[in-house]
């Protein structure tokens, strides 16, 4: 386990180096968050009664989404992993005495976390001091906050485990961009990246809430805002645990099978 933490640590520090890129990203995300909130506000003004979430919950959802974009956005793609499969660099990894799945899992998780840490602090800070209707409010209780932290950790795990499945698909198709774009786009949508799940029509929503994608952005952001609370939050977290375990299991099995057959061309 220690070596995976070491890999995690190296990646984390490495990603922290790109501060200017992070700053440019920040301003974009602010503007993005504001535009999203404004569009929801316009609908809210039409008819506050039929708004399926409390407005403050929606605002919190959007700020959490923007602040932790790097944690949950499915379209963040780890080029190092993809390239090591495509250019054969994987051969080096295979001779090392570590489990490949574990190594990739920790590098991806570290990259996402490092990016998120850089970005979330200023975004959260400003979002907290904004004027009233657009402000990010604190979670309703300390317990809720603890659940949010737990759910964020699990959510990150589910995202990485899911992305790992997409990476392993690279062993089968060398030009992955099509499948990747489709899966990522659909996943982002189903995790509430475009409109939060409460805005989905009821029958669709009942199904979507059970999918692994609902365990990604949707769960932590809604627990934070208080849109999911109490027992619902607990069962949501259980669902996250289930998906994390299931995806990791599937991922390990597939990668083990694939690695048995992998052929690295020399050169």
């Amino acid at each position, binding site marked *: 386990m220690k070596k995976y933490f070491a890999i995690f640590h190296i990646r984390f520090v490495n990603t922290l180096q790109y501060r200017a890129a992070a700053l*440019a990203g920040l301003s974009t995300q602010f503007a993005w968050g504001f*535009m999203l909130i404004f*569009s929801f506000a316009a609908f809210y003004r039409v008819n506050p009664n039929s708004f399926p979430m409390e407005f403050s919950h929606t605002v919190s959802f959007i700020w959490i989404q923007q602040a932790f974009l790097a944690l949950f956005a499915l379209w963040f793609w780890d080029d190092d992993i993809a390239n090591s499969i495509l250019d054969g660099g994987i051969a080096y990894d295979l001779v090392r005495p570590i489990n490949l799945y574990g190594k990739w899992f920790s590098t991806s998780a570290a990259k996402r976390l490092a990016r998120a840490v850089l970005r979330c602090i200023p975004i959260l800070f400003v979002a907290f001091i904004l004027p009233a209707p657009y402000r990010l409010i604190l979670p309703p209780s300390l317990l809720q906050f603890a659940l949010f932290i737990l759910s964020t950790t699990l959510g990150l795990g589910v995202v990485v485990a899911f992305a790992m499945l997409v990476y392993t698909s690279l062993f089968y198709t060398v030009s992955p961009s*099509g499948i990747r774009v489709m899966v990522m786009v659909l996943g982002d949508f189903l995790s509430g990246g475009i409109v939060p799940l409460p805005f989905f029509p009821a029958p669709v929503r009942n199904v979507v809430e059970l999918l692994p994608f609902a365990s990604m952005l949707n769960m932590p952001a809604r627990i934070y805002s208080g849109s999911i609370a109490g027992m619902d939050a607990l069962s949501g977290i259980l669902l996250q645990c289930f998906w994390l375990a299931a995806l990791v299991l599937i991922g390990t099995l597939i990668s083990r099978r694939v690695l048995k057959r992998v052929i690295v061309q020399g050169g």
Partner: protein
Amino acid sequence: MGLYMKFFSMHLKSQMQYKTSFYFTALGQFLASFTVFLGIYFMFSIFEEVEGFAFSEVLLSFAVMLMAFSLAEMFGRGFDLFPRMLGNGQFDRALVRPRSIIFQTLAMQMDFTRLGRAAQALIVLIYAIPASGVHWSPDRFFTLFLMIVCGSLIFFALFMIYAAFSFFTVEGLEFMNIFTDGGVQFGRYPFSIYGEGILRFLTFVIPLALVQYYPLLYLLGREDSLLYMFAPLMGTIFLLPAYGFFRFGLSQYKSTGS
């Protein structure tokens, strides 16, 4: 122009070599904008209108922006690669060739997978044109045409600014995304719903509202003034400062030396 057509067919042929990959990527592009469409659909299954615009009317603005953007992206993709071109010294080679820099940039890359988005836009447009309740007349069709063409010119100008920035920073700048990707993302609703300040910004600074909100009012018969009809043409004035900035960047260019 003949040379450009040669490049055009060259890129088309080379991308068609990997047919499966091409179709999958195009399908992915289609799906990406389809989820945005679903988002709008879901919102309107709860609410009947937003700021006085009904579903089919909003779809008009969504389809126009999407179409304009995908056209601009298809032909202006070269600007996206500009930072890389500067970084690896390829740009120095371009400078010594007897063709304009912009021409070479455009000819370098064309991305036909963007047709996936354009297809989405076309389908929505085919639905929205009759459904929006607009009394279609030749001048209104002409307005719609202007919206799309001038819209893609404005996006094109934004790509050019993005490329010009990299003369100074060498890296690409993420914040331009808010105008390019953001323009198409948020252009799904008429820009007036974001409030007075943003509408003004998008009218006078980055004139995206000139190809979307104002001519839309003309289409819907809410404004009769020809000013609204020809607003998209005024928007294309934006090309001038964009081009000027690009020239300025070019004059400041120092090779990275590699």
